[in-house]
């Protein structure tokens, strides 16, 4: 078994997967219904990415310092903090909780 071979195949597949999305016919994208679906999908993907990064650990669900990051970010956003401040609040909350020995 040659590891190099599988690495290169994985690279090719990753690129082709990304590229395929760009070749979905333009006509489809002009339909208002498809555009509406693209909008709801954006919300769904962002919500899912947030949750996955907050509580997933492989195939397990864990409550660790990342929950603190989620809460800190939500508070910062609610206070209308700019993006960078929100991100730093998240990182600081997670780092602090770990320093205190949780998660």
């Amino acid at each position, binding site marked *: 078994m040659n590891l190099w071979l599988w690495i290169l195949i994985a690279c090719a597949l990753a690129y082709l997967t990304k590229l395929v999305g760009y070749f979905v016919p333009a006509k489809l994208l002009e339909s208002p219904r498809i555009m509406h679906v693209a909008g709801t999908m954006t919300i769904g993907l962002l919500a899912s990415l947030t949750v996955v990064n907050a509580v997933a650990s492989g195939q397990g669900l864990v409550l660790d310092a990342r929950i603190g990051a989620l809460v800190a970010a939500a508070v910062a956003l609610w206070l209308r903090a700019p993006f960078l401040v929100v*991100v730093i609040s998240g990182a600081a909350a997670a780092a602090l909780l770990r320093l205190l020995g949780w998660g």
Partner: protein
Amino acid sequence: MSGSSPPMKLRESPAFKIAVSLSIATGLYGVSFGALAVASGFDFWQTMVLSLLLFSGGSQFAFIGVVAGGGSGVAAMTASALLGLRNGIYGMQINAMLRPGGWKRYISAHVTIDESTATASGQSDPDEQRRGFWTAGIGIFILWNIFTAIGALAGDAMGDPKQWGLDGAAVAAFLALLWPRLKGREPWAIAAACALATILAVPFVPSGVPILVAAVVAGVIGWFSHARMDEGLEPDVDPYAGQHKREHGGGK
């Protein structure tokens, strides 16, 4: 660089600022990939090729994770490919937003990842979407590869990036990108449904797939909510068009 309307200074562009902070937070994480890959038995160039050519964090960690766990190359490749499927959906969305033409789409495809798509999606102005996508895509590509190399060379000497809260930064960044879209009842309902679908899916499917499940849930909701919205409002559909086509054995 002269046009009818003066270009916005990059530093004043909100999408640019978001993209730069995301690039730094994500790029730094490359250290942990580099260190982990070398610790799992990959050599320096194998590690670098994964960051340069595969370039999708989740898939890269999956690939080395399977090998580190004693899995075969085929299994590593399968896990990585499965995890990368969502990038196909991202490609569709970026294409709908930016419509890159010619050779540009071949480059934009390569930098179509969670963060670049999320940065673009978080903006409503097309110019901002473009700035956000390219800045995050290229910025992360450069930093991710530099820090992969540092991690691969320095190994574990730098400590766990979790200690610096970088995983918390990712959570905060994705929430911050979602936040401005949560205006009104439907977006909240979709976000809640997809968050729930993700949590329910995590234990049962390989990592990376829960995001696809959420995408399907969001797509189905969007498909049907659009139908509801449009009841009696869509005059441009000729109910007989399909029939004519069929009768005459073809389209126009």
